[in-house]
């Protein structure tokens, strides 16, 4: 089975430039610089049907065409390695085990869009990964893959790592740009989109780590070959981070369209042989689905979306029959409340309100009207904020309540949990 990014790796032993080159690394860059125009590079990426791996699933090739071609000043490519969507831990493995795939992908993107500089914004909590990326970039620079007149061509490009320091919101692309500029990470209004007004007000394209890291393979083997790894409109392989109640949590790179049942089996199945109850298929911001629904689904953008959720970042959070859904939602809601940047009232106030209502339900003090209140709150947050964090806070609430309503009602009516026998009796905050 072909693996575009994680194939042929041996953990911490094969990340260096020499190992990458031995795997065929930087051949794509040679190929592009010696015989392809920037337009042809974009054309291959379009053909591959590569879609944004950070969560939104936007077609990458199309995004690259939004950059102005004839622009005399600086243009930037930025990598969003600020991986902090609960359940997602794939970019960390790409960065520590195959950093040059990202670096080569960013150089190719720079060439395709005429950018001269790139920044790789790395999640705060993974310090050793940041240090490794610093080493890898230096290796690439020393070897002449970064800098002036790369491989003797007319093309010059340099790349720098930027270390975050703990803010989920900086995974939102315009908040990330603000953060790169040394400010609070508060999202900007769109439009203007980053391709028009990005980093330092210059045209900028932001892609996820896994997206960039897929590009060298596409250029080497062709867009068509990548597309054929997956299925139409869902090209390529995808790294799924499987966490929660499974025997072998970890990253699994499989073709898009792989049945969920097979992925679960690769992750060792449900821990302790218990029954599957629910799965969040794409990171904590995506709607939860009942386990029996998931068992019938394939893991690709269109299948998951048809079932009422989203593939998102490919973070698969598995919950078994012992999970209290109220308690699970309580923790997620606290997360969104903590991470709201505070800029928009519906999100700043609404996420706290959601959390407080779920908290009291979980602690045996829910009221009869609370379920309707949760849904109404969600309605009044979703679609009413500058960025998608508000939606991300509202979507889990709506889906948890819709699919597991009886459990929430039980908490309210009986002041205790349907699953664990009794609600926690701590003081309500």
């Amino acid at each position, binding site marked *: 089975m072909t693996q575009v990014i994680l194939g042929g790796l041996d953990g911490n032993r094969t990340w260096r430039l020499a190992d990458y080159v031995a795997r065929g690394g930087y051949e794509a860059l040679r190929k592009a610089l010696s015989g392809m125009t920037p337009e042809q590079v974009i054309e291959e990426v379009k053909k591959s049907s590569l879609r944004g791996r950070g969560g939104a699933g936007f077609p990458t090739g199309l995004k690259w065409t939004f950059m102005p071609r004839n622009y005399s000043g600086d243009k930037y490519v930025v990598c969003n390695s600020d991986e902090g969507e609960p*359940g997602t831990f794939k970019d960390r493995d790409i960065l520590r085990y195959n950093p040059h795939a990202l670096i080569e992908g960013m150089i190719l993107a720079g060439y395709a869009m005429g950018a001269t500089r790139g920044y790789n914004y790395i999640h705060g909590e993974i310090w050793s990964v940041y240090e490794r990326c610093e080493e890898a970039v230096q290796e690439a620079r020393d070897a002449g893959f970064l800098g002036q007149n790369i491989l003797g061509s007319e093309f010059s490009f340099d790349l720098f790592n930027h270390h975050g320091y703990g803010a989920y919101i900086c995974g939102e692309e315009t908040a990330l740009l603000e953060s790169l500029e040394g400010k609070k990470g508060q999202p900007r209004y769109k439009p203007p989109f980053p391709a028009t007004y990005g980093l330092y007000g210059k045209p900028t394209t932001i892609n996820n780590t896994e997206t960039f890291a897929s590009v060298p393979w596409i250029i080497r083997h062709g867009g068509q070959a990548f597309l054929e790894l997956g299925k139409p409109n869902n090209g390529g392989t995808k790294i799924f981070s499987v966490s929660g109640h499974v025997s072998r*949590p970890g990253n699994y790179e499989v073709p898009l369209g792989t049945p969920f049942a097979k992925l679960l089996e690769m992750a060792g199945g449900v821990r302790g042989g218990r029954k599957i109850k629910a799965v969040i298929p794409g990171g904590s911001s995506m709607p939860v689905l009942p386990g029996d629904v998931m068992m019938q689904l394939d893991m690709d953008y269109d299948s998951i979306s048809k079932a009422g959720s989203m593939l998102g970042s490919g973070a698969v959070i*598995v919950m078994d029959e012992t999970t209290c859904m109220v308690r699970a939602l309580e923790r997620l809601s606290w997360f969104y409340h903590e991470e709201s940047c505070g800029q928009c009232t519906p999100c700043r106030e609404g996420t706290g309100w959601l959390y407080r209502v779920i908290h009291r339900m979980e602690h045996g003090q829910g009221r009869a009207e609370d379920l309707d209140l949760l849904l109404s709150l969600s309605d009044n947050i979703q679609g009413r904020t500058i960025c998608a964090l508000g939606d991300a806070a509202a979507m889990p609430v709506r889906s948890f309540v819709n699919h597991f309503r009886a459990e929430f009602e039980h908490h309210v009516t009986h002041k205790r949990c349907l699953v664990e026998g009794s609600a926690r009796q701590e003081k309500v905050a």
Partner: protein
Amino acid sequence: MLSEQAKRKMDAELAKYPADRRQSAVMSALRIAQDEHDWLSREVMDAVAAYLGMPAIAVYEVATFYEMYNLKPMGRHKMTVCTNLPCALSGATEFCETLKKRLGIDFNEVTADGEFGLKEGQCFGACGDAPVLLVNNHQMHSFMDEEKLEALLKELKS
């Protein structure tokens, strides 16, 4: 307030950005300053502002926005454990109880001897390794349990 060594490290960060964009290095500069002083007092933040040529208020804004900066002393070893949903499903909640009992403190507290501080983390992006413990923001310990904790505490105290 800032050592020569810290300033050299900040210079290396400044070199990554256009010359007229010194503010872009503020996050790294605060991290470097915090590594040196353990926490960001007003004086330390003012020194960072002066070094980067930024208004002090703009530095405070950044320091108070991002979670990994210590705005008060957090002990010689700040321990942060992620308790978010994927980690909670894999033993983080129970591990935190063990940790609290062992240190005799709750989240956001520091032991009386000033050795250990405890914080609850959001998402480290390492959910497959749960429970995950971060020491002083930079040292990640995966698959934590009671036995590993004892070994770690012993190592940190020495």
